[in-house]
Every structure is written in structure tokens, then in C-alpha cells.
């Protein structure tokens, strides 16, 4: 982390076993004007992403998921990702992730990004979900018809610039 980074007082990060609430994220990125150019003008667009537990994965019929996380490091990773996004785009962001048992159709992750420029809001929102999947210490334990399995995706390495450039590229710049 760079101690010279701009403080984003209204960025909202949370990891919780409670049901997620998109309105809370949108409120976080639009209310309480902070001391930034974004607030002086007000957001023109707010994008959001909600990740939902699907009933199918890799041909297996999924019954439910259990999410485990290393909570203090999850929050630090959220801050890192949010700062990366705010350094690159003119955005205020929110990022909430749920842990514990989730049923099919429940939301596991919610992201919101507000910006005067809709291109920035879209790019930041997409970037953040890609980075969540790359470096946030959370694991899905999948319970399916016939067994269970820990899902393993990316080796987490926040300093891997190739991964970060991939996320920037997918986000469209």
C-alpha cells in the first residue's frame, strides 16, 4: 500500500454472514459527499454487479455452497482492490462479500461503482469482480448431488502484475 494514496472515506467494504443488500452499497457510493471531485459534480452513473449462487457447476447439480474466508485479509484485499480501481478510474466503490452457507439464488458478492462517467463506472465494476476472483482469500465449498468439493481457482498474488493487467484488459481499460 502507498501511504500517499487519496483517502476514499466513503468506500464501503464488508465481509459478513448476513444477507447482502444492494441498496446499502449504492447508498455508500452516492451519499455523504466526500472531499473529491466526484462528489463536487455528483455521480452520473452507478453500475453494480451481483454474483448469485448457481444450481449447476461443471456439470454437477449444486445443492448449496459454504463460503469460508480469512476475514482480516479479505478486508485488506478489498481495500487494495478498491484503491487500485480509484487510482485508475474516477469512481467511488463499494464491495461486500458474504460468507457461510448460501442457498441457490442467494447473492454471494455485491459491487457498486459511481462515477460522473459511465465508462469509468462500468470498467471499475468489472475490474473489481475480476480482482476479487484473483486475490481475495475466500473459498467456495461446493455441496452437490453425490459429494462435495473445495473449488480452487487462482493462486492469490496481489503483486502479480500479469494478473492485474488481465483484469484491466477485461475491464476495457
Amino acid at each position, binding site marked *: 500500500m502507498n501511504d500517499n494514496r487519496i483517502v476514499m472515506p466513503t468506500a464501503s467494504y464488508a465481509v459478513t454472514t448476513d444477507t447482502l443488500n444492494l441498496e446499502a452499497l449504492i447508498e455508500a457510493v452516492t451519499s455523504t459527499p466526500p472531499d473529491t471531485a466526484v462528489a463536487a459534480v455528483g455521480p452520473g452513473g452507478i453500475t453494480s454487479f451481483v*454474483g448469485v449462487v448457481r444450481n449447476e457447476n461443471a456439470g454437477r447439480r449444486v445443492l448449496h455452497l459454504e*463460503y*469460508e*474466508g*480469512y476475514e*482480516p*485479509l*479479505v478486508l*485488506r*484485499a478489498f481495500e487494495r482492490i478498491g484503491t487500485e480501481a480509484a487510482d485508475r478510474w474516477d469512481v467511488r466503490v463499494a464491495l461486500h*462479500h458474504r460468507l457461510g452457507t448460501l442457498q441457490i439464488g442467494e447473492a*454471494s*458478492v455485491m459491487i457498486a461503482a459511481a462515477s460522473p462517467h459511465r465508462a469509468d463506472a462500468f470498467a471499475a465494476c468489472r475490474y473489481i*469482480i475480476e480482482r*476479487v*476472483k*484473483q*486475490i*481475495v*482469500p*475466500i*473459498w*467456495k*465449498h461446493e455441496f452437490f448431488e453425490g459429494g462435495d468439493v*473445495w*473449488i*480452487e*481457482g*487462482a*493462486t*492469490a*498474488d*496481489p*503483486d502479480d502484475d500479469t494478473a492485474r493487467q488481465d483484469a484491466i484488459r477485461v475491464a476495457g481499460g
Partner: protein
Amino acid sequence: MHVNVRLFARLKDIAGTGELARQAPPGATARTVWDTLVNEFAQLRDYEASISVAVNEEYSRMDVAIADGDEIAFLPPVSGG
């Protein structure tokens, strides 16, 4: 010296616990601690090339020197979102 080890997801299943207290020699690195665990729980070796490590709740490197009382967390590939 004394370190607190945290394991997650499948690593926790292999070790049968997510929290272990272990001794480490002076000059030990995170890798020293990992090697100790692999000796104890052979299945951990499968994760040799894919684990990440965090020291005191910050991402770190396997070759970082550790200190008495540190919390060393070993993380299998992540799958959040």
C-alpha cells in the same frame, strides 16, 4: 520461537484443524514452517506450487523471515465471487 499457523479450505481439511501452534528455529522463514507441516501432513505437498502465504494478516512471500509470535497463514488457490 513460537508461531501460530492458520490453514483454510482444503488445507484445513487435510490437517484436521485450521489453527496450529508450532515451534520454528531462529532464522526460520515461512517456507520453513510450511516444510514442517508437509512432513506432518503429506497431502499438503500437492499444494507446494499453488499456495499463497500471509504473515500477520498481510500477503507475504515464502522466503520472508518470521518472528516469534507471528501468525502464518497458508492459502490454497482462492475461489471467491
